């Protein structure tokens, strides 16, 4: 089964991190991912830009509406995601727990199984972090 792990956090806090704090957290998160990566089970991993860069297309009466900002105005927002291959949910839960332990900014990880519609090479183009 393919799983997506959606990382929710307080945006204000995470974007108040200094460069050093950010690098420290990212380093630890990389360590947690490495075994999965080596086992070939880790799919694309993404960090979302701040919600201020978000646009929402919402169903309107006639044409869909294009709105500035995220879909829902909430205290905790979706900040990033992981995708992985796993045989059991336990495996995904264990991985998410490890991520949670090293990431002081995250408040929850939502685990959602998903289907792939278009497997492609998109992830390779944008490797800058």
């Amino acid at each position, binding site marked *: 089964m393919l799983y997506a792990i959606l990382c929710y956090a*307080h*945006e*204000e*806090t995470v*974007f*108040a*991190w*200094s460069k050093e*704090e950010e690098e*420290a*957290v990212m380093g630890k998160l990389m360590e947690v991912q490495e075994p999965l990566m080596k086992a070939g089970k880790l799919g694309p991993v993404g960090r979302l*830009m*701040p*919600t*201020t*860069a978000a*646009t929402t297309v919402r169903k309107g009466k006639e044409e869909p509406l*294009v*709105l*500035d*900002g995220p879909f829902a*105005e909430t*205290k*905790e927002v979706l900040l990033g995601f992981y995708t992985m291959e796993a045989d059991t949910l336990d495996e995904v839960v264990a991985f998410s727990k490890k991520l949670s332990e090293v990431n*002081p*900014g995250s*408040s929850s990880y939502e685990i959602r199984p998903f289907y792939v519609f278009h497997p492609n090479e998109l992830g390779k183009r944008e490797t*800058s*972090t």
Partner: protein
Amino acid sequence: MTDIAWIELALTAARPQAVGALLRYFRDLDTAEEAFQEACLRAIRTWPEKGPPRDPAAWLIFVGRNSGVDAIRKRARNEPLPEEEAFSDLSDAEGDMADRLDSSHYRDDILRLMFICCHPDLPNTQQIALALRIVSGLTVPQIARAFLVGESAMEQRITRAKARVAKAGIPFETPGAAERVERLGVVSSMIYLVFNEGYSAGIVNPDSAAFCDEAIRLARLLLRIFPGDPELMGLLALMLLQHSRAAARFDVAGQIVLLEDQDRTRWDRKLINEALALLDKAIRHRQPGPYQVQAAITALHARAPSAQETDWQEIVLLYDLLERIQPSPVVSLNKAVAVSKLKGPDAGLELLEPLAERLQSYFYFHGVKGGLLMQAGRNREARDAFDRAIALANSPAECAHIRQQIDKLSVAEPL
């Protein structure tokens, strides 16, 4: 990161909203700040044990309000009761805090807190200092170091600024739509002042260089609560683009590296991509404004793989637009530079002519003029312009940069 470090970040992040709300309750900046301080102390005591609350700002407002009320009651035992209008909403102090935190309220709370720092009587440096103290929560020593003044001098400056603001009366009524737009404009310029204070300090003073990050944080905060404002998107994009060059703007010796000579691989692509996304959003609104146009100009530099591949044609058109919506001799000076890239130094010099009088004491004017004269082979006149620039330089780095130009002159034509 330790727990305490995380808590400190959460307190900083919650500060504008919490102090803004407490200011609305108590209608007095000092009382609001003290109440917030008290709430922070309690947070540091209780959060490590009980875990952070789901909504740190709501927690701090609730606790801060109660402690503020306590403090007022204690004082009231010794003093006559304060007038009823002196503070508002106290009767429902125990009311449902989720209700109180209705988003329509807190938007204006944050905006008001920023707006009072922008009193027109306050000189720019005091506006910046006040905002960094009240909105960002920087300490007085931190701000003093950034401005290269003593702590007690900075303390005095901030106290005077606060007194000035209090005397002016804080606008508590919920602003109307037109007023809100006006406040947003004033606050945007204040945020850009904070940014520029950090930007011009560069690497010389890391304490003020941190202002760039702070200004970006404040702009993101504002845009989150006013998500559909294209000029705010423009302002944030502009600052992100300028900040993306931070690592390339100075060489190892601390000397200025001009845009055309910068190592573009050192530009921060993450910041650039965010800025480009914001600009795309802003342009959809079809309401161009000065920040959007400046950001669009800066974006053209960011998009160019090399200095030679810069789209000067488009940049000149954007400067034409900027001259129309925000005419200023500095904008015209920048346009002259762009025109010279497109049509040669003589075309640029021609555009400088009419600006000479108004920009006679402006460092960049003489620097640019010297550069263009040098390109045109008029070395003697270039030398005069560079001498003038050195006399007006604002920092040792600026001075050193002009000296390098003069050295190039001497090589070209030994004196």
